[in-house]
């Protein structure tokens, strides 16, 4: 219970800090808050205009005051409109979030689907041909940046053979074929390094487990290979890969910017980056906060789940 409270307090502190920092970030832009004002009103701003904008954005209050106003807006859903295109920020984020989440889910599934069997077999036949090829490949895949992989995939499947339209045309899950076509290349691009990472993690853990005593005992007792691999050795080896995958749930949602940008999918990453480029500060604020919240809340849930599952973790966590 103490652990839970501890973690909860941490969570709240982080949320507070993230929202606070984001909400006051406007003040610390180079050029001062005049930059923001100028963007909203245009050059040649009159003092009254400046004052009005500053009031609207809360820049004329104290730091805490601005934060309170921002939090109020945030919690009541009054997120406002973009400076320049007059889009509702809330609906923009609401539209972008599912896309990123789709990518995240599909990429995780795809990568794990391949990583787990390959890792198990590599660990089992450690040093063998399969293992050597697999490890080298994984290593190589980890070293290839996604902004190289993406264009190569695009050239292969959209230009050479016109199987997939480019740029991706988003379709909801109600149109499965189009949905698949829209997501397949970005998902593969994201999944490749994920796969490599997961594979290495699981393989290493599996190898370590397979060397431990209880496995030797089981083998000596005549337990079959398949049973050893899947029933006995796999479960204890899952710690790292599950942690990694769990953390990625939060991290991937905001993290696949390059891929989204390249395939022109309007996910959270692309929305945030485009807003940064267009200096749409409020949109950036809300995007960042949403992403950060997802990340920390997901991690919090993972932590609690682990503590619940494995009491040793609670003690071990104290050491970090």
């Amino acid at each position, binding site marked *: 219970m103490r652990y839970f409270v501890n973690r909860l307090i941490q969570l709240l502190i982080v949320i507070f800090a993230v929202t606070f920092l984001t909400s006051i970030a406007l003040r610390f832009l180079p050029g001062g808050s005049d930059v923001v004002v100028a963007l909203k009103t245009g050059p040649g701003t009159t003092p009254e205009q400046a004052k009005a904008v500053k009031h609207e954005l809360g820049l004329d209050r104290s730091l805490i005051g601005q934060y309170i106003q921002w939090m109020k807006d945030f919690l009541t859903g009054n997120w406002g409109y973009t400076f320049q295109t007059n889009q509702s920020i809330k609906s923009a984020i609401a539209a972008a979030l599912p896309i990123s989440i789709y990518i995240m889910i599909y990429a995780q599934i795809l990568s794990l689907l391949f990583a787990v069997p390959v890792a198990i077999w590599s660990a089992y036949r450690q040093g063998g041909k399969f293992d050597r090829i697999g490890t080298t490949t994984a290593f190589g895949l980890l070293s290839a940046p996604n902004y190289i992989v993406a264009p190569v995939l695009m050239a292969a499947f959209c230009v050479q053979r016109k199987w997939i339209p480019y740029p991706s045309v988003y379709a909801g899950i109600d149109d499965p074929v189009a949905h698949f076509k829209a997501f397949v290349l970005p998902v593969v691009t994201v999944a490749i390094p994920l796969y490599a990472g997961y594979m290495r993690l699981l393989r290493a853990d599996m190898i370590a487990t397979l060397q431990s005593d209880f496995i030797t005992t089981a083998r000596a007792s005549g337990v079959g290979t398949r049973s050893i691999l899947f029933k006995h050795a796999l479960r204890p080896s899952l710690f790292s890969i599950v942690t990694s995958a769990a953390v990625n749930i939060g991290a991937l949602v905001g*993290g696949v*910017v390059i891929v989204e*940008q390249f395939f022109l999918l309007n996910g959270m990453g692309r929305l945030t980056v485009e807003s940064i480029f267009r200096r749409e500060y409020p949109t950036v604020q809300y995007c960042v906060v949403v992403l950060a919240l997802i990340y920390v809340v997901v991690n919090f849930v993972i932590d609690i789940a682990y503590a619940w599952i494995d009491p040793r973790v609670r003690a071990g966590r104290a050491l*970090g």
Partner: protein
Amino acid sequence: MTVALTEMPVPVQVSAMMATPPKHRRRGRFTMWIAIAWLAFITISAIGANWLPYIKHSCSQYPNPKQCSTHVIGDLRKIEKPPAWAWFAHPEKNIGNGPERTGIFGTDRNGYDLFSRAMFGARNSLLIGFLSITFGLLFGTFFGMVSGYYRGWADRVIEVMTNILLAFPALLLAIFIVTFSDNPNSTSSANDTRSIGPIILALSILAIPPLTRLVRANTIMYSQREFVIAARSIGAPNKRILFREILPNIVPTLLSFALTGLALLLVAEGALAALGLSVEAPLPTWGRMISSGQERLRQGIWWPALMPAIVMFLTILCINLLGDILAERFNTREAIA
């Protein structure tokens, strides 16, 4: 994983990178020496790019173009040439413009020799990566050691700050920092070219949290060892313990982490370049060359993008290999998760 500063949080990436099983694997020394050789070549080329004979100097590298030894030669038409060895590449009909294929890597659309640009790019990219990881190391080690040794409220504060930093999506944070270091409304005569500072700042900030965590974990572990307890019992001051006892033990882990981190930051710099946030044109960095070459890639002109990509890939691979070997040597898996 190096890819994914965007895909995974760094600590997880790194632990995956360093996921070598305890059983000692006979990694070919051959591989290690190849990796070292390649990295040495790149580093030497990067440092000596100005005067090494095999590097042609594009005039834009120099503030004073009179210093450059080559110039855009010949007709502007069809100046983009494939590498000399690419017998399968079919450049368009040349209008009396010298050999159809030229150079180790070919030339780009401006006629610059790509190999030379890649070497200059090595300098810029490695500089950025190296400086970033160094700053990350400095601050990360400092915070990590303070946090891991003194524990108590210092530890909690640092942990919370680390978590806060980690909560922000990594690449977006970097993009934010780099973009907003530009003041869009300045009325100076359009001479605010992008400098290297914000990029290094952004990348360092990305590197600090995982390093802090790593150092902290290691510090805690070593703090409980006998020699530290012994040192404390004879009254050695804390600072001395930190520097003399703990730090030397952490260094190997740090090194292998730093190598991996360097690779990650190189890729991250490329990612920033892919979004247009790299150093001022026309200075080359690998990331920039790759992202600017992408457009040509889709027209079937593969060498401006693929050649620096291969160089970058090999370099990252070798860095990762070395990092991996070091990790294996010092077997530090337990210290990470």
